[in-house]
């Protein structure tokens, strides 16, 4: 599946605008690190703005960007309003408080799981060899990795996590396409 056309237009527009603004506002030269970071923020902002409100990751990106004070310089005043309009109605305060609660819950369940044994479980000595348990552990580890990779997906449960990755992959691929063409045009 592909990302929709107007997303591509919007992303390109936002990104280029942001590049212009940052170039004008930066004035003199800045180090490459700063420049890279700025462009990364810019690209994230353009992505999230173009995506709008339909996905969790876009809101998470915007919320993350809006928090940092030093970003406002290059994000531009016009973008700021859109940021607030997207981030605030949903009360997206980042994942901090929710996550803490969830981690506490997970710790509790983990401890309890150590003690409690379901019926029909074989002896503990052979528990590491059981493929189902192994598979579950692997899946759990990988979902954790996935949650780290995808912005704003830490508080999602398995099903919504998968839908979120689906959405994210589609738009990330579109972004990569666009940026590839862009860099080609730039002559790099």
């Amino acid at each position, binding site marked *: *599946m*592909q990302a*929709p*056309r*107007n*997303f*591509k*237009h919007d992303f*390109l527009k936002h990104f280029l605008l942001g*590049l212009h603004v940052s170039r004008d506002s930066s004035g003199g*030269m800045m*180090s*490459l690190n700063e*420049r*890279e970071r700025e*462009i990364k923020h810019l*690209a994230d902002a353009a992505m999230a703005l173009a*995506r709008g*409100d*339909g*996905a*969790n990751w876009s809101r998470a990106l915007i919320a993350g960007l809006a928090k940092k004070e030093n970003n406002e310089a290059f994000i531009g005043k016009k973008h700021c309003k859109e940021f607030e309009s997207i981030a605030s*109605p*949903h*009360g997206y305060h980042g994942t901090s408080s929710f996550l803490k609660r969830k981690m506490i819950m997970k710790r509790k369940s983990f401890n309890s799981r150590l003690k409690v044994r379901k019926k029909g479980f074989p002896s503990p000595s052979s528990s590491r060899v059981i493929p189902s348990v192994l*598979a579950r552990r*692997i*899946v759990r580890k*990988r*979902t954790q*990795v*996935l949650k780290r*990779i*995808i912005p704003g997906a830490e508080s999602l449960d*398995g*099903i*919504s996590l*998968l*839908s979120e*990755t*689906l*959405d*994210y*992959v*589609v738009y*990330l*691929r579109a*972004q*990569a*396409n*666009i*940026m*590839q*063409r*862009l*860099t*080609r*045009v730039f*002559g*790099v």
Partner: protein
Amino acid sequence: MRSWSEAKLSFREERKMDLGEKGKFGLEKRTVDSLNCNTTGLTTTEWNQIGSLPCPSASMVDSFGHVIWNQLPSNTHNLSFSNAQATASSSTIGKPVPMNWNPSDSLTKGGMFFSTGMGMLPLSLSQFPCDAGFTERAARFSCFSDVAYPFIVPGSSDATAEAQMQKNEADRIEALKGRSGLIDQSSNSGSPMKEQREKGPNEFSEPEFSDDARDESPNSSKGVFGINKRKRSNQDMESDQGQAAAQLPFEAAKDVTDNKQKEEKNSSTMANVKPLGKNPKESGEAPKEDYIHVRARRGQATNSHSLAERVRREKISERMKFLQDLVPGCSKVTGKAVMLDEIINYVQSLQRQVELFQTRTGSSSVIGFTPEMIHQQLHPPHQGLIQVGMAGVMNPSDAFRRALNVQLASTSGFKDSTQQMTNAWDEDLHNVVQMTYGNNPPLKTQDLNGAPRDGFPL
């Protein structure tokens, strides 16, 4: 009529351009691409001639539509591509009107395409709904028992699938106007399917259909995942339309199935949804109910826990199927663990690519160079990996040469490169041009950024 055809033409062109991108970058393994190869090869060469501009704006697309519409009467007689296109156009409805930059060739082909497109009009009608086509898509979603349907849309290449799709489409559009179509469909489905009213399968029909109607993206995609988040955020106004559309078949199917079946809880905006008007009583009680009624399948356990588990498992497997289609090279892989691994790798590689492009953009927009920057630029070792790993479009020889160049350039030390950096852009272009013509440029003067530039299939 005329404006509608023009709109359809523009849709077709957009689809073609997107398909052309697909075919060009070769990530998608759809059968559509294999059919598109002949024709998108054409378009990709045209793209390259133009110098690979980014996607033309929608205004340009519309202008193409206008021009070709005008040229149509003179070109309908041109059937030179009829054989090749007869099969291709069946699958790629509205098979791309090529770019107008080669006027003589393109317009004749365009005219021909349009004439075949006219023959396919009923199909294309369903495949390219207009902007107001939420209701049509919702009609599609009504077939929640037929999950295989969405996969037919992008991948079908034979006439039978098209016919079935057409039938489905006709059914669905009919369902909207009167719900008899829906009733027929659900009775035709035959097998004792679960009559769940979850939004899971319907949600995931949506991303598939976003292919068809690219212009509707924000609402469609918002509709998909707005539905997901509805439990948390009640004020997803933009997804209302998508959800409203999704609710309509719900309302419709209620007549067919159990009267007790209710819908999932929605936000207060559900009250604004106007159903088809045949069941005011049920639309009244719809927003109040909170849970899903699931019927146990024949021969399955009726324990509530197992039912819920089964629902959950099916949701997960459905999403995994979609992801499988999306991530390249995952058709053979089965099982959650391995699939997740592939997904993670894919997402990470995409992110790394984007990072690469970002650094390139940054360096190109910075005016001056310092030695520090040059050293940093020469450091991307993963470039070679990406390049070798994704030699889809490039010839193998080119790929190897470029990989070699990257490796050699990185090991040749920084001294030579710093002096060359100043003339980097000129040399870069020169070398790239040489490489595309198969010459063997001197290896040491390769600019790292230049070498892997071409043929980055995505």
